[in-house]
């Protein structure tokens, strides 16, 4: 049986995931692809999945430019992606 004991907010949505799921994975599960926008407004998405490319940056609990692929989901977390205008 899966243990979807963690619930977090991604932009306006809520999603429940298993412990150990990264924020990048939760964003994908929630149906979003875009994490951030480039200087010229082009959409960006996770690429390397291992903390190198910096493309997966999102705002987590008010802190900008957090690497979603390197952050585990936590209960009650608020994640803002580029769809909410986070850079």
């Amino acid at each position: 049986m899966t243990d979807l004991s963690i619930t977090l907010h991604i932009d306006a949505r809520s999603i429940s995931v298993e412990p150990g799921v990264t924020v990048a994975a939760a964003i994908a599960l929630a149906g979003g692809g875009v994490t951030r926008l480039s200087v010229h407004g082009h959409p960006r998405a996770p690429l390397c999945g291992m903390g190198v490319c910096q493309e997966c940056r999102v705002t987590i609990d008010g802190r900008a430019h957090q690497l979603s692929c390197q952050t585990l989901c936590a209960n009650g977390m608020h994640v803002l992606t580029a769809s909410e205008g986070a850079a």
Partner: protein
Amino acid sequence: MNADVIVIGAGIVGAACADALSERGLRVAVIEQDIPGGGATAAGMGHLVVMDDNAAELALSAYSLSLWKDLVGDRPQRHEYSGCGTIWIAADEEEMQAAMEKAQNLAGHGLLCEMLTPAALYAREPQLRAGLAGGLLVRGDGLVYPPKTTRILLDRAMRRGAVTRRATVTAIEDNCVMLNDGSRHLAQHIVLAAGARSSALLPALPIEPKKGHLAITDRYPGFVKHQLVELGYIKSAHAPSGDSVAFNLQPRPTGQILIGSSRQFDTIDPAVEPAMLQRMLRHAARFTPRLTELNIVRTWTGFRAATPDGLPLIGPCDARRGLWLATGHEGLGITTSLATAQLLAAQIQNETTRIPFAPYLPGRFHD
């Protein structure tokens, strides 16, 4: 190379000289060993700032800012220009007094400035720590991305027939330069604009490299809105020796925050020094505490070409026949590049100049 003038160095000063000389109809050749705009020009903050430590510095920087206004014109984004203005921050009453004097001095030159009470200061820059005495807003100041402007000036000169050549000048002779391939090139005028490396070609030049560290953050749009500089900067930046740091924060048009600055003598090692960087960042965080929450994405260093009196060397040099200097701009060479080029080109062409050029003549260091 069939040139009337050979310019050594394609930093912003050499590029501005090439532009001004070609505009006057001279055939210009520019020799650059690396990438145009890749020296101190790429390392600097790109702050266009009126400085008034003395009358000559004020005259040169104010003149140059008016030239920048014309150059940037209605296409600011080509230069990544932002008319952000500068706020000089006063930490205490003594610095507030200094701000007042600065305001009077600048206003005397017709420059727009405004004294800020603490309330006015915090309304404009809420990230500043509590307890500051106030500040001075200088509206006409701005910022650019200097390598881009360098390219624009150089391209303009090339459209008028100027040529560039990638080579290292190994020696300057009378009306002549020698290159690393052993070739010699004659020209009526030689302009030395090699920045901090100028003294490698003329060891007698009164120029010393002053190392500086900078750091840039990720994008945090709106964190600060003006270029912020502490008034204490003036005390620390002009110390004749010793290492110093000063609070200098710049909002880049990308939303990134550029953090300066440090000054060190007696080193030509370009390595980033963690201890100096730490000192600089700690100092900056004392003014804007939330800076510690931001990600820094890059750090680097550069070398300012410092003269003993802090003014550049613009004019003839009697060490060689036909030699002219356009160097020694220390921490103000982006700002003063355009005026430098006008003063130099006018001297070469025997024209009258918009401001007196005597204070910048290299001959002031000989008696």
